[in-house]
């Protein structure tokens, strides 16, 4: 009996080791993620939201972008069998508007996340790798932007652009201008620590040029904290977009955005709470989904934090 168990154990272990080959950080992380409930819930929500943003008509029979679907006479009539989430001040169906509003949030969140990661990550790599004056120039530049609070700075930029021109892509631009330095800092610190590793010295000794060292050796080993931060930031950007639209400088009607809907509904909240509550709930869920996703990714990629 004892014999049997002893022989079974190593076999099981050997099998697992074999399956993990080649064991890299990424496959390890993926292995962890698949078993993480938070990740599963978060990514399921994100998938639904992305689907909602791409194909809103799958979720709502009413096309909220068509003004003809609004009937002013039906304004603020509360929840009915026809309007599940009630109607807003202009008699538009809140449910379909909430569904169609997902697009702006997802676009702003993902586009800003990607742009900041690319710009901040790229410049951070250069600053960390070359050091000296490149680092001085890029770091000081980043600090200048870093000193401006994101929401206040974006408010200022968008107010200068003017309401008539403002739209989702201007919000992306305003947020990206102010948010990239955060990524630069993280990337730079991570590159500096990777640069002094033995494998970099080895690569250099073998005659690799700076480009090859950066891309093949340093980047893969330094990028994890950037991915973690960028994922967590998605939720922050989505909330920022809603905030800016709420204040009237972000996305402009007739585009649909949750922040805009909340802003429009707030003055009549006591009379008709539905058009405020539902976009607010969706906004919270979306931000939560991205934060859960980011958290799970961080846990998986950086086991030291656990």
């Amino acid at each position, binding site marked *: 009996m004892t014999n049997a168990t002893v022989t079974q154990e190593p076999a099981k272990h050997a099998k697992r080791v074999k399956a993990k080959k080649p064991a890299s950080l990424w496959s390890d992380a993926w292995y962890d993620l698949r078993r993480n409930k938070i990740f599963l819930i978060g990514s399921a929500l994100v998938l639904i939201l992305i689907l909602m943003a791409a194909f809103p008509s799958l979720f709502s029979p009413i096309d909220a972008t*068509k*003004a*003809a679907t*609004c009937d*002013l*006479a039906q*304004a*603020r009539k509360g929840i009915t069998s026809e309007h599940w989430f009630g109607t807003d*001040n*202009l*008699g*538009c169906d809140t449910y379909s508007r909430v569904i169609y509003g997902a697009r702006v949030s997802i676009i702003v969140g993902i586009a800003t996340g990607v742009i900041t990661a690319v710009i901040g990550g790229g410049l951070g790599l250069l600053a960390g790798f070359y050091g000296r004056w490149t680092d001085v120039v890029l770091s000081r530049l980043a600090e200048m932007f870093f000193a401006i609070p994101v929401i*206040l700075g974006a*408010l*200022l930029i968008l*107010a*200068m652009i003017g*309401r*008539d021109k403002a739209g989702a892509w201007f919000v992306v631009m305003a947020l990206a201008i102010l948010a990239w330095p955060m990524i630069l800092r993280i990337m730079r610190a991570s590159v500096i620590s990777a640069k002094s590793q033995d494998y970099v010295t080895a690569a250099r000794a073998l005659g690799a040029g700076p480009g090859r060292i950066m891309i093949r050796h340093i980047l893969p080993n330094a990028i994890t904290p950037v991915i973690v931060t960028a994922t967590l930031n998605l939720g922050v950007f989505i909330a920022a977009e809603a905030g800016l639209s709420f*204040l*009237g*400088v972000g996305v402009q*009607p*007739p585009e649909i955005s949750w922040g805009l809907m909340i802003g*429009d509904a707030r*003055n*009549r909240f*006591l*009379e008709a709470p539905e058009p405020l509550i539902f976009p607010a709930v969706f906004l919270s869920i979306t931000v939560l989904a991205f934060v859960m996703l980011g958290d799970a990714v961080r846990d998986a990629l950086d086991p030291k934090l656990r």
Partner: protein
Amino acid sequence: MRVTRGVKLAAGTALLALAVAACGGGGGDSKESGSAGAQPVRVQIAEPQNDLIPGNTAETSGSEVVSALFIGLMSYDDNKKPVNRIAESIESTDQVNWTIKIKDGYTWHDGTPVTAQNFVDAWNFTAYGPNLQQNNYFYSVVKGYDEMNPADPDGEEGPKEAPEPSAKTLSGLNVVDDKTFTVELTHPFSGFPTMLGYVAFYPLPKAAFGADGKLTADYGANPIGNGPFKMSKPYKRGTDQTIDLARNDSFKEGQAKVDAVQFKIYTDLNTAYNDLRAGNLDIMDQLPAEAIGGAKAEFGDRYIEQPSSGVGWIGFNVKTGASYSKNPELRKAISMSIDRKTITETVFSGTRVPADDQISPVVAGYRKGACGEACTYDPAKAKELWDANGGKDVKTINLNYNADGGHKEWIEALANNLRTNLQVEVQAKPYEKFADILNDLEKGKVPGGFRMAWIMDYPSPENYLRPIFATGGSSNYVKYSNKEFDELLKKGDSAATFDEGLKYYQQADDIALRDLAYVPIYFYTTNGAYSTHVKNIKIDPFEHIDLFNVERA
């Protein structure tokens, strides 16, 4: 270049401060309102378009302040009948030559007496074309106006400038003595004395003018008036967020009940309304549409609802505007696709009345249903008319409005009407301030539709027609010009009796309704409210708060 950018930045910061203030508005900071004795009565306004000069003030916010600082020859009683104020008598035998005598004892804030010369100086200044005063056009009835305002050879938009005027003063004005002056008009005009209560005809003191005969730079910021209140400190337009007034203790008609009034400038009516609820503001004479439903219950006795002289329009620049602005049939189609009834009922909680005439129901001359088919909601016919007149080529209709007047909701509702019924793209564009859209309108820089409204200056049907539709009228932002219309107004002015004059005015009204340069949407109701710190609040049909009689509660 640098200056412009600095200005823009400053504007951004102001917006920011306001936005932040808006967030904290509902907090109910009532600590500072405890010491009511030392605190001025705080009144909401938007930013005045121009400096506080009567001749250059043609919008409601500025005139709210100006009419606290100045008084004119006439005022209007509760029945909107003109009564003498500074005037002792205004007499004429032929309706062309008028003799105006003024009362003793009225003084300027600097102590000098109000004389006949003060009126003549002010009127000459306003009537002189190159001074670019907003209310210039009101003087076109006075003899000598044409010499002071030569026509621009190629129109306002052309590159050529108007020639130098051949006269610097109105030849029709004549000072007889300190207390008497005469006015000669271009044609018989029985309604002339009725006009004289309007801000355009207020006097200006000697001290206002510099050596060159122009107003001094200081005067616009710190005007010396003759009214129940005076400036307590100069007002820097564009920077200051309040205009502070103190009681004029030597006012002939007695002393106002409160010693200080503060006009607070808001860029958002909802922010102002939150301040009113929190006790940080005392009087609003126009509530945001969203608030009207709840305000009745919340303010009870302190909620004011009364008929107003206001008419709300969507205007179109018929001369240099977009294709749909220029085409009367397309304008009619737009008008017919607007569901006035539902907008007034839903957005304004029934406190507006669908408009069916250019003339408000509060003055004689209003005819129910005068607008007829053009103001009746008929989506099918509207679409037919739209398509038949090339509406299909219109890509986007632009609707411009000012965000500081609480107009967003009904403009959006109206935009939805157009989108649905005409199947056209509609872009609603907010301007931060009323003053900004007015400035753009004056330069003809608004090609699309725009929101505008009119509150009468003096109680006459003519006031709903001439300043708005006559060629060169002071508020003719649509650049409308029609000879027949202008002639009918003149005939109306010269008519022997009021009723006969009315006939001509109504014919002119019919032309204005046919061409629909301004599409009438609704008649206003005054929806105001005030805080517990004040009482005895009266708002007149001109939308001015009677600040003289306001008391602290």
